């Protein structure tokens, strides 16, 4: 047990002097060809929250919609249904009325190509909705905590001591010598043990090492918030939304693509769906009611309460970025093309928002694909650095890089150009 216990600390201590950072130099995998707008993708990202193909949900069933309406009509509608209705198109108004005046939200950001693709997809939709295969592996509990293990071992040893002494006593009795209690034995034994200086020395050393390791671990533990999952004001389940209903992360965390922050959805975003979905699968109406309380909506009459004093939902922040570090989502999501899972783990399999563990992230397939392996706790600086050291910059897809950094290709010919090589490890890039 001592060995187990010391092993890690020895490694770490020795690391101080011996470490060569063991970087994985995997083959740079071929960057995916620049994708044409994929109808299915767009549909999944934007529509699935209200439309299910083959049956009516919040929005109408879209099977054969392209037959019913002209492409042009549809485009107008998708761009901004409200404007379209305002423009006084009869059909539009009709649908508006039919779905008791719940407005479909506008999709200005969809380019014409996107629309085309989307319509093509709607022309001949897949037979039944395909669920995205959840990324496997990841979150299986890695057995008992080491501490509990140790406790067990200790227990076993104690019982052993007890047994042996009692045996000894019984023997002594049979020999007619005077017996001694367990405690006496233990005391005398330790005394004799410590009588020897060398033993003293080793005990001392051992204690020292244990203390050192403890100190070391605490130091390394500073600011580590792995698997932090506070209780939230609303029992929101990522599993139900992102998982079962496979709503795209960016639908709610909309600014992740454009801004430094991923953004917590405002109540009106929730209402896009929950104007109609008034009761949840697990919690019934209680939790959803909280949204209505915030925004002032009457689920029975399905109307907003006039002059209601709205009060914001006060979520508890899970990913706490210290003030001194600058992180920008769009840099990583849009430019770097990372998937949310690569840093946040498989949220679509979890209910409460939480900080993913290092092991989980290392099992994320796309991390494996990009040959990224973390060896610092999630959301520590080391965690960022690990990735910056390993992940390759996709130079060819972005004219910024091709024009600004073509010289790099020459400079690092044959090597993979990591974020580090572009100065991604410089203090000033994140701290200012």
């Amino acid at each position, binding site marked *: 047990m001592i060995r187990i216990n010391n092993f890690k600390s020895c490694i770490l201590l020795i*690391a101080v002097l011996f470490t060569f950072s063991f970087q994985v130099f995997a083959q740079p995998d071929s960057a995916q060809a620049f994708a044409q707008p994929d109808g299915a993708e767009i549909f999944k990202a934007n529509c699935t929250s209200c439309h299910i193909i083959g049956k009516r949900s919040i929005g109408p069933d879209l099977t054969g919609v392209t037959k019913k309406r002209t492409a042009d009509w549809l485009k107008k509608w998708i761009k901004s249904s409200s404007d379209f209705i305002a423009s006084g198109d009869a059909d539009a108004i009709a649908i508006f009325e039919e779905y008791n005046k719940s407005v479909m939200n506008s999709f200005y950001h969809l380019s014409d190509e996107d629309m085309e693709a989307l319509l093509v997809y709607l022309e001949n939709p897949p037979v039944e909705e395909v669920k995205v295969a959840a990324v496997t592996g990841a979150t299986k509990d890695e057995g008992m905590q080491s501490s509990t293990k140790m406790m067990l071992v200790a227990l076993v040893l104690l019982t052993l001591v007890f047994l042996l002494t009692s045996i000894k006593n019984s023997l002594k009795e049979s020999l007619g010598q005077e017996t001694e209690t367990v405690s006496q034995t233990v005391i005398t034994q330790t005394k004799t043990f410590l009588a020897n200086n060398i033993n003293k020395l080793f005990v001392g050393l051992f204690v020292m090492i244990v203390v050192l390791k403890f100190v070391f671990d605490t130091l390394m533990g500073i*600011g580590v918030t792995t698997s932090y999952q506070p209780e939230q004001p609303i029992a929101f389940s990522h599993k139900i939304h992102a998982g079962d209903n496979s709503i795209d992360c960016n639908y709610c965390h909309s600014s992740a693509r454009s801004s430094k922050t991923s953004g917590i959805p405002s109540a009106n975003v929730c209402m896009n769906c929950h104007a109609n979905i008034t009761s949840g699968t697990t919690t019934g109406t209680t939790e959803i009611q909280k949204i209505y309380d915030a925004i002032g909506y009457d689920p029975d009459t399905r109307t907003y309460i006039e002059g209601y004093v709205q009060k914001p939902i006060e979520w508890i922040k899970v990913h706490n970025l210290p003030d001194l570090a600058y992180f920008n989502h769009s840099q990583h999501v849009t430019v770097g093309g990372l998937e949310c899972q690569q840093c946040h783990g498989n949220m679509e399999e979890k209910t409460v928002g939480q900080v993913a563990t290092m092991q989980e992230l290392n099992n994320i397939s796309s991390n494996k694909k990009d040959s990224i392996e973390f060896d610092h706790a999630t959301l*520590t600086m080391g965690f960022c650095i690990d990735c910056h050291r390993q992940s390759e910059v996709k130079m060819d897809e972005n004219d910024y890089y091709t024009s600004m950094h073509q010289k790099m290709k020459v400079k690092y010919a044959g090597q993979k150009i990591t974020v580090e090589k572009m100065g991604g490890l410089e203090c000033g890039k994140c701290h200012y």
Partner: protein
Amino acid sequence: MQKEADIRDPLILGNKTYHDITKDISRPVEGKANKYWWILFSLSLVLFIWGILCMAYTIGTGIGAWGLNKTVNWAWDITNFVWWIGIGHAGTLISAVLLLFRQKWRMSINRSAEAMTIFGVAQAALFPLIHMGRPWLAYYVFPIPNQFGSLWVNFNSPLLWDVFAISTYFSVSVVFWYIGLIPDFAMIRDRMSATISPMKKKLYSFLSFGWSGKAKHWQRFEEVSLVLAGLATPLVFSVHSIVSMDFATSIVPGWHTTIFPPYFVLGALFSGFAMVETLLIIMRKVVSLESYITIKHIEYMNVIILLTGSLVGTAYITELFMSWYSGVEFEQYAFLNRATGPYWWAYAIMMTCNVLTPQLYWITKIRTSFVATFILSIFINIGMWFERFVIIVTSLHRDYLPSAWTMFSPSFVDIGIFLGTIGFFFTLFLLYSRTFPVIAQAELKSILKSSGSEYKNKK
């Protein structure tokens, strides 16, 4: 047996026997403190506490509590630091270098000199710590693996060299000191009667590591002392050289000078010996060691002071010459400004105390007088403090761009902290003089027969 030229004056007066030595050395430990001791002790304790308050205030509100500004970012803090480090040099020098040179007269002073070293360095080490804007993050200067990826220190920085140099110097000095202390603790242990003072007995037997004075142990003892001396000697030189590099490797005119390392080391010895004298002259009275710390010892030290003092003076002149010879207007102005600028008075004090006063030691009368030596040693200490002040402040306050030129004046906190360290230093030293064998009696006994007055007179 060792021989010694008869013309040499005895180093131990008053016909001592081995046993007398034992008695004399252990007297302060066994006996009660006299009133001088109490006066000095309470005085320095008060200073110490005042210093602590000032430090607390600094850490509480910010370095702004000091007189520093955007141009002069170091002043008293680093001045004191270098001053104390300098003082901390004589100790190891005496015990190491003089040991290598087989100077017997070191034996009756090296113990205290080393004590002074250790306490001095302790004071010095305070300043790099508290001069930081965020001392609670001081551990950033050590290469500790961390969750930052790992984030390391900068081995190009002279300040980091300091960190290593000072910690090494401090710890090695402590070891050197302690190795020598073990036999003497043993001596005290063996004199303590377990009945009268059991606690003390326990304490000293703990401290003496169970020393029994076997022949083999003595053999190893001597070898170890010799090797440690061999290691400590270059260490002494390296430490102050490195401290001087804080300045020498910078580009501030007046700092950027290749002469600094030797010049600082000499200065350190200079001030160190002065401080040793100050202390010993007090101590021989306070714990009555007149027959072991004789005027001869003082004279020998004075000679060294005379030497180093003259060398330091030469360094000053060289500096001036080089600045002129360099033809760099910034350098030239820096030194011109030292001598004639707003801080001319500091320069004047430095010159008188460090260059002129030691020259008085050419006169035998002064060289062999306790009173004169005591006064002059104080002068030298002051002078050396001002040397550091001059180097740091007058160089900084007018460097390259006149638009940034300004001046520095200390706040009460600056002064308080300095006094505090003096208090701290003396507190430690006085405690030491009551609880430690203040003279390396084992070594001393080994020379009794060759340099003791009695035996000298016999011949």
